[in-house]
């Protein structure tokens, strides 16, 4: 046990060096960081976004040197609530709740707070004043992408829109879309479609093909989720319409970057928050709470606009290069008190 603690300590120290120089004077309880136990209780874990989020959590936890446990409920809402109780029983000091349902997590989160545990929640509203909410701002994501669409196409165009109601982030992005449509009466939405049938890109491609043949006058497709955008792009390519249609989306991955950079690609821009950065911010917000500081109730990680032109000009080929060449994407200046060690870049 001791050797393991020493090991995490060493890694943590090594990770701090390029960041903030010598940061041994962290406030209590991080003067003995190896003794601080932190749990990540997950609802969603499958897919690139959640893998990247986890890697961010792991890196930041390593940088501070805390002992991280990961509980994965794999979309079982009841199990996720049980896992919070399990964490309480294990004597965990801090919990990050990652996604989940308000109905099942609200009471569990309250029990953790009552047990004196510090809690932060990412992308799930647990309706608790003592629990900071970490969010990627979905409204800002949609706003950035749509501002680019208006800049490229003017404020009069015929649009197709991909949307599945009932998914919280998509619902928030939808609010922005409605607002932008209201502010720009020249934007005409002629088709709305969307599905989450697996594999999503394939199912959306089938739908988008139908939509494009029914409405060949569409010039802008707003697909505020990268799997949707990928599907629309397949359909646009298959219909031979990449010259006439522009796709605007949200989120980004290495595969998305490749798709955006293909010659003559219709995918013009996407707005994204780096999931790894969101993971890091989640841990930092929790660490601030544990040190008795207040990260604020809404910890918002700002998104970055990524355009096709930007990717081509900077010759960005994958997520790693996006991080190094677009600094705004690699690090968010959120929840960073002076003592906080940052992960190595």
């Amino acid at each position, binding site marked *: 046990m001791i050797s393991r603690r020493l090991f995490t300590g060493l890694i943590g120290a090594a990770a701090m060096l390029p960041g903030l120089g010598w940061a041994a004077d962290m406030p209590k309880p991080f003067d003995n960081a190896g003794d601080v136990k932190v749990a990540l209780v997950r609802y969603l874990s499958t897919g690139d976004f959640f893998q990247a989020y986890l890697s961010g959590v792991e890196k930041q936890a390593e940088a501070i040197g805390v002992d991280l446990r990961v509980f994965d409920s794999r979309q079982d809402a009841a199990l996720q609530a049980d896992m919070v109780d399990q964490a309480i029983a294990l004597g965990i000091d801090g919990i990050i709740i990652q996604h989940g349902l308000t109905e099942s997590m609200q009471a569990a989160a309250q029990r953790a707070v009552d047990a004196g545990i510090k809690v932060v929640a990412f992308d799930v509203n647990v309706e608790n004043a003592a629990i900071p909410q970490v969010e990627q701002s979905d409204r800002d994501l949609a706003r950035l992408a749509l501002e680019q669409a208006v800049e490229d196409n003017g404020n009069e165009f015929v649009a197709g829109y991909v949307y599945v109601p009932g998914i919280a982030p998509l619902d928030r992005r939808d609010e922005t879309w409605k607002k932008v449509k209201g502010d720009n009466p020249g934007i005409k939405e002629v088709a709305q479609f969307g599905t989450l049938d697996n594999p999503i890109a394939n199912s959306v491609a089938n739908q988008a093909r*139908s939509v494009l043949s029914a409405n060949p006058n569409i010039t802008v497709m707003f697909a505020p989720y990268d799997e949707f955008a990928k599907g629309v792009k397949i359909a646009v390519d298959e219909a031979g319409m990449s010259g006439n249609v522009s796709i605007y989306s949200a989120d980004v991955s290495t595969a998305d970057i490749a798709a955006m950079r293909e010659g003559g690609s219709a995918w013009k821009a996407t707005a994204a928050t780096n999931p790894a950065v969101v993971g890091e911010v989640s841990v930092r917000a929790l660490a601030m709470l544990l040190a008795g500081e207040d990260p604020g109730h809404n910890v918002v990680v700002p998104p970055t606009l990524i355009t096709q032109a930007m990717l081509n000009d900077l010759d960005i080929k994958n997520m790693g290069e996006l991080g190094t060449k677009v600094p705004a994407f690699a690090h968010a200046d959120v929840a960073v008190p002076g003592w906080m060690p940052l992960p190595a870049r």
Partner: protein
Amino acid sequence: MKTSPNLTDIAIKYGFLVLMAGLIVFFGMMADGFLSPFSAVFILQSVAITGILALGVTATLVVGGFDLSIGATATSALMLSSYVMVVWEMNAASAVILCLLMGMGVGLVNGLLVVKMKVPDLLATLGMMFLLVGLQRIPTEGRSISTGMALPDGSTAMGTFSDAFLMLGRHRLDLFVPKLLPLSVVFLVVIAIAVWVFLELTRHGRLMYAIGSNAQAASLAGTNVNRYKILAYMISGTLASVGGILLAARLGRGDVASGNNLLLDSVAAALIGFAVLGASKPNAFGTAIGALFVGILLQGLTMLNAPYYTQDFIKGGVLVVALVFTFALSGRGGRGRG
């Protein structure tokens, strides 16, 4: 039920085809552009993958079995082909061959579990489904596969999908109009004809139907029941991997997906196929028509801006009607029900 009037006979035999024709006329009037060669090709392309999987399920249904693992086999082939090309940097031919071998292998294991270990069909293939859903994610730690992805050991994958491979899902042949017919549709048609010929016209196919209606009698008549059952699962596994290859070629990356929707859609197509021409049994022609029927329905509804949940609802409705056709209306004369 024993003495239905002739009208019922006609309804059973041609009801579904009439319904499909009516649907085409309806959508043709309601949605601009539905009645065009492009639209027809879209529909065929959208059902190519589920159609091929459904033909595989049909083979197992014929011998009285069932294959729940086809969706997972297809997504495993999707991941495997991506892994072979992107991480191992091998060429298209090796990707295709490895996937086909994997599909065949999965079918063989399914068949052995059912035949030798006496595990019931649904349970054996259910187990296989979970195995594959997990297995396909282990090499990449749950990440999707694309060029430039970070590997678990920290390096970056540099391979790309070869153009020859992408062609399988994207290339289009000239037919009347230039660049009209996608290769995947050609695969669907060829496979549908091959499965139909095999099941309906060869001795092997007839023996498989015999096994499906009464395995014991078939065995007493000298048929090697076990061998044919294993063969059916191998056909199913192989066709599922073909579906996965086409999916990979269309997506151009290895998407993490459970394949459950592929499974459900293809099973629906095969079951709808029971009702076509009053067959009341699994058959390749019916399966192809069933897949097409669902494709036409979804294409038309999407063109009319119907949201996705109404599409699921209507798909379910069609399936229920087809099953009523099969089991209630044609209760007196179904060949397969002896």
